């Protein structure tokens, strides 16, 4: 059972994610975005989108830091005060994200205009995200000091996955809530290519900070291409 969920599924879902993304990017780049509905409703969205994104991005960055430098996290947590600070901050951002997510779900369910644009995929994602945030918060509250044992259990397991040598034992004995959290995260990754989650993998906006304001395209400037982009 564990072998199947935490040994084989990661590979299946990662493959789906990668192949799916390549497939969607090449065949339907047009749809590669999150279809914004702020234009139709912006009052509730404010209370949903802002807290949600800033909350979840912070949490995600925390997970990623833990993944790459678990030793640093453990070292930081060596002093109890610092551990409390880290845990409480994480919890606060988690609740911020939960609040935003609930506002977004409420909005999807109640606003007629937004409902008209809601696809089955959107509903599925909201369910997956809700499970993810609730189990995450549950972990943090019920099984305290997650930042410590995350670094000692899930992180080595993830590394073992990437090293193509899955060590299921690292996670086999974790509590059910945690297992759901981990498995659901993989479902999330698998869904990226098939939904609005595609916007999660954005390659464009960072360039904006460095490029000059204006963009000019020339049709006949360079004989080799038909579409020369110049900035000025």
């Amino acid at each position, binding site marked *: 059972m564990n072998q199947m969920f935490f040994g084989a599924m990661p590979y299946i879902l990662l493959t789906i994610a990668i192949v799916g993304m390549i497939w969607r990017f090449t065949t*339907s*780049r*047009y*749809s*590669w*975005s*999150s*279809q*914004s*509905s*702020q*234009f*139709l*409703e*912006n009052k509730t*969205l*404010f209370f949903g*989108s*802002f807290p*949600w*994104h*800033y909350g979840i991005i912070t949490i995600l960055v925390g997970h990623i830091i833990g993944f790459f430098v678990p030793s640093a996290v453990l070292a930081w947590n060596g002093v109890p005060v610092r551990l409390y600070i880290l845990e409480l901050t994480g919890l606060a951002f988690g609740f911020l994200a939960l609040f935003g997510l609930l506002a977004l779900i409420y909005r999807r369910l109640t606003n*007629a*205009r937004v*409902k*008209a*644009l809601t*696809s089955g*995929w959107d509903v599925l994602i909201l369910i997956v995200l809700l499970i993810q945030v609730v189990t995450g918060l549950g972990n943090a509250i019920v099984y305290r000091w997650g930042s410590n044992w995350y670094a000692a259990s899930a992180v080595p397991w993830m590394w073992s996955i990437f090293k193509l040598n899955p060590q299921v034992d690292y996670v086999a004995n974790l509590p059910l809530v945690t297992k759901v959290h981990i498995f659901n995260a993989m479902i999330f990754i698998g869904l990226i290519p*098939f*939904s*609005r989650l595609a*916007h999660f993998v*954005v390659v*464009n*906006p960072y*360039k*904006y*900070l460095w*490029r000059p*304001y*204006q*963009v*000019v*395209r*020339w*049709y*006949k*400037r360079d*004989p080799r*291409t*038909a*579409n*020369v*982009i*110049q900035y*000025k």
Partner: protein
Amino acid sequence: MDLRAQLSMSFHMDKCIGCHTCSVSCKNVWTTRRGAEYMWWNNVETKPGAGYPLTWEDQERYRGGWEVSGGSLRLKLLKGPGKIRTLANIFFQPNLPTIDDYYEPFTFDYQNLFNAPAGDDQPVARPKSLITGEFMEKIVLGPNWDDDMGGSPLYASNDPNLKGLSESQKEMLTKFHKLFFFYLPRICNHCLNPACVASCPSGAIYKRGEDGIVLIDQDTCRAWRFCVSACPYKKPYYNWANGKSEKCIFCYPRTETGQANACAHACTGRIRFVGALFYDADRIEDVAKSPDERIVEAMRDIILDPFDPRVIEEARKQGMDDNWIKAAQESPAYNLFKKWRIALPNHPEFRTVPMNFYLPPLSPILHNAKAESGGMFDPESSEFFNSIDKMRVPVRFLANMLSAGNEQLVLESLKKQMAVRMFIRQQRVGDVGDSAVKNALSSVGLTAQDCTDIYRLVSLGTFQERFVIPETHREHQTAVDPRTMYEKRGTVGFGAKNAEFPRRTW
């Protein structure tokens, strides 16, 4: 010098009858799709009026356009240094208009008129939202809701151009016999310093080097909607159904083949003129930074004289075809804006350096002049000519709208138009004195030849004279793209490579 070409449209506001033929032609050609129903790439507003979307000219609210801060240009939207703010607001944009600022697109339940069961009451066709498909309680806004002021000053009193007018001048709005209004037809200005391009985090919007048309690459657009907020004219529109922004494309598939834009072609008042301009791209930034009083002059300065041999040489060096040089020399845009100085840009103070020009309307001014002097004016008296500037209400209003508040520029144009009328009236009717005409001409600095030319273009202008649009000759550019025209059929321009509009599946 970095010489580039720009296609530009000019509008003779006095002749616009507010018939909306232009808007309807544009809609029929480009925006009848789902999600685009509410878009009017070309729209005609009654002025004074709130406009579409409501109070779009109020940049305190929308923060469109540019401002100069610390000697450099920055998007008003950013409010702080650097572009980081754009990215910080990527999850929720505080200044984005919503569909309620335009109107909720609707249709009527016509079938009910045919299918309603027999009953005591006449069946009605109730309005139905095109977004939700549900019946609407009440239609509260629609295209041209305040057309011809909508029968009340309610909307007109919100016109941002009324600032700087005294209370008694504003009162004019409510006095039926003193009322003035006119029409402002609007398309995207295809600006030289477009705020839409500058705000796009994806780099999806671009200006075409060859003809200056500003387009949105539909495959690259990621629905961030910053262009909608940043454009002070609110001319990019968000397609809520497929999650892409769209805007006026200056009918480039038509202009590339030398045909007039759909709106201009259809215009019943024949108020529109389309032509090419040469400008110096090196100086765009200086123009955009000019102080309000000087900005229109600065715009005129970077338009290059297409007869100047150095300009022609430079154009050839840039690989410009001879038909473009010839078109620039016969360009109505050049004549109206630069040579005769009678056309003015719409809200140059937004600093996007817009490339559409408007001849300010004389009619509301004359109307007021007449009202003041008992309803009649005597064309022979020079008093009339000189009293134009006494009619402060509309001049101030027009200056707010067309010259960043510089009344002199509006007066110059109005007086010139008046002088042309007197000149032609003397020729046709002969009831205006020689000296009156001479004085009028010399005081505005027009020659008899200028008057004849202006009259020829704006009153008699044939199709070929009003629309001088050089072809792009894509078929010759085989070095660029070796496919023949036959192989390329069905491909539409730079961005979309599919003949059909792509469908969104998620």
